[in-house]
């Protein structure tokens, strides 16, 4: 019945802590993980291929379905890539709004992350607290574009519609609420003895290794590499914002946790600056009636909550749809580290590490 030496356990695709449909086949020696096989593909919908048969505007709503907890970020990433292909100037007002939406989305995504990560480690109250605040962000998005999950909130060249009156005030109010709530989460976790024991020294990855694997976003910064596309290659209105990029030192689960907690605060800082300084003006640039970029290719990346979200698009200059559409999803690349991270750890650490990488399977499989 059971092998006496190793026990092979199939964790997922239906398991409470694999965050969707990730499947991890674990080889166990007692409680210890000897080896692991990460199986993906349960949520593959062929978004990239599908996009090659849609016109440029229709693709925006397909990008919603990749990282569905940060749909607006995906929209922004795609639209900016097409704008780069078209050499289109985006009005300043639209760029400011994009910045606000991206950062709200980062907070929403991190709320979901802190909740589920803490839940995996057994602290269930944080989960509900974080979802309470995420709800406020969803309300803001609902007011802006009418949707709560898949927003379709961006257009090539600018915004689909102007901000509702008073929306920026509500965003500022939200910032005030949120900054005290982040302290609340930290109070429950950061100095909690059990939390420290569960996360410190678990899943250490050095900066060099992280770069070799291709990690990006908080997992990379947790290992001490100060790479943030918002700073290094600013897009939207990030070049006009003041913020710092938190980095960790040890590269363990705890440092990745601390980096994301600090990102909450930095995001709030950016949102405050942007919401107070939204310039007046048009919301859409000079977009041609028929979007048909000249033949050529481009790659453009933005800093999604999970890491570097890049789009590689080829246009043949003849048709009204992309010739080739390819996404560099941060979750997929970050997930590559999982096998290496969980080797030698215990079962309980596996769920902590999946949470610590913060993957969204919709984006991994596309």
């Amino acid at each position: 019945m059971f092998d006496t030496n190793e026990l092979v356990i199939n964790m997922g695709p239906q398991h409470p802590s694999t965050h969707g449909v990730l499947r991890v086949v674990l080889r166990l020696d007692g409680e210890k993980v000897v080896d692991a096989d990460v199986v993906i593909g349960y949520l593959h919908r062929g978004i990239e291929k599908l996009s090659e048969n849609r016109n440029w505007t229709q693709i925006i709503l397909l990008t919603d379905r990749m990282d569905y907890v940060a749909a607006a970020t995906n929209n922004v990433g795609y639209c900016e890539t097409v704008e780069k292909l078209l050499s289109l100037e985006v009005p300043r007002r639209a760029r400011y709004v994009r910045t606000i939406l991206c950062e709200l989305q980062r907070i929403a995504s991190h709320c979901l992350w802190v909740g589920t990560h803490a839940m995996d480690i057994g602290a269930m109250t944080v989960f509900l607290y974080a979802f309470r605040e995420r709800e406020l962000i969803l309300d803001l998005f609902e007011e802006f574009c009418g949707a709560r999950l898949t927003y379709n909130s961006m257009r090539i060249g600018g915004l689909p519609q102007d901000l509702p009156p008073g929306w920026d005030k509500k965003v500022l109010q939200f910032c005030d609420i949120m900054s005290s709530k982040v302290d609340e989460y930290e109070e429950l976790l950061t100095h909690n003895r059990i939390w420290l024991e569960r996360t410190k020294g678990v899943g250490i990855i050095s900066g060099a290794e992280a770069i070799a694997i291709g990690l990006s976003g908080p997992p990379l910064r947790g290992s001490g590499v100060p790479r943030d596309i918002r700073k290094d290659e600013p897009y939207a209105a990030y070049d006009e914002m003041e913020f710092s990029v938190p980095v960790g030192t040890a590269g363990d689960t705890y440092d990745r946790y601390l980096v994301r907690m600090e990102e909450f605060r930095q995001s709030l800082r950016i949102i405050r600056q942007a919401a107070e300084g939204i310039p007046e003006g048009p919301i859409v640039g000079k977009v041609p009636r028929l979007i048909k970029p000249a033949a050529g290719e481009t790659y453009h990346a933005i800093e999604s909550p999970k890491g570097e979200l890049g789009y590689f698009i080829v246009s043949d200059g003849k048709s009204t749809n992309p010739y080739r559409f390819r996404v560099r999803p941060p979750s997929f690349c970050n997930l590559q580290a999982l096998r290496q991270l969980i080797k030698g750890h215990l079962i309980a650490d596996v769920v902590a590490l999946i949470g610590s990488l913060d993957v969204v399977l919709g984006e991994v499989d596309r």
Partner: protein
Amino acid sequence: MVDTLVIPLLKILIVLNATLVAVTYMVLLERKVIAWAQSRLGPMRVGPYGVLQPVADAIKLMIKEDITPVKADRWVFTVAPIISMVPALIVYAVIPFGPTVSLFGRQVSLYITDINVGLLYIVSVASVGVYGIILAGYASNSKFPLLASLRASAQLISYEVAVTLTLVSVILVAGSLSMVSIVRAQEASGVWFIFVQPLAFGIFVIGSLAETNRAPFDMPEAEQELTGGFHTEYSGMRFALFFLAEYANMIVVSSVATTLFIGGWLRPFPNVAALSFLDIIPSWTWFLIKSFLFLYFFVWVRATLPRYRYDQLMRLGWKMLIPLAIANLVITGIIKVLLLRG
């Protein structure tokens, strides 16, 4: 006839029923308290403020299909929940809810029986319950429950040692194993044993959290890791038996903690005459209030703390609690001897 048969049977009936009701309502209390901690409302639909939720739950669990996996060891699979439930209930035989009172012109003791090895009885009977968990994991013939039951057995055995050692130091102070005599000893010395044995109390509380599989030591049923642990394959009433056993055990350890450390049925400051007006409140009420505080604490801890990892739990048990408990026991013994000499 009446004293030897009718009254004990009546008492057993009352305690058994009260326990089962208390257990189901403990589930509701837990859901409510955790909900409040998490800024939710908790069950609100069945009855006003959800007070009939336990009834609904019971009906649901009873009419649910009872599934036995094809490859399970049928006989053991059936027996396992019973093994874990029964010890949790028969422990109540020696728990003193109050002293002897006169009721309808008859002297009635508010406990089913008072045997002179009461504490030993509790420890030994309660530890039979762990077999239920081990057998459930084994009989399910499934990997996750097997891992969970291995965890459970290791955990319960380790913490049993620490907890029992703290009980021994209380026995040394009280000079008796009888639950009633331990309360009487606290009455005579005029001080609750929590002040005499604070370290033992601390170890007992931590150990009892682990022994009842409660957070932060709920490893055997860690949902996020083992998808429900040893009762993954159970459904319907058999699952309910495990569930009830867990809560019944919580009430048992709360009662034991109340009896041993905070004076059982005694009012606060039992020998301060100025507070004698507190005697209006019947003794069993004090007992229930104190036990309730423990239960509330259990729920509170669950809402607050993350879960320990298996190896950390073992380290805490063997490297911290057991040495501390032994040291506490030795020091208690030395002081006791010195006091007896002097």
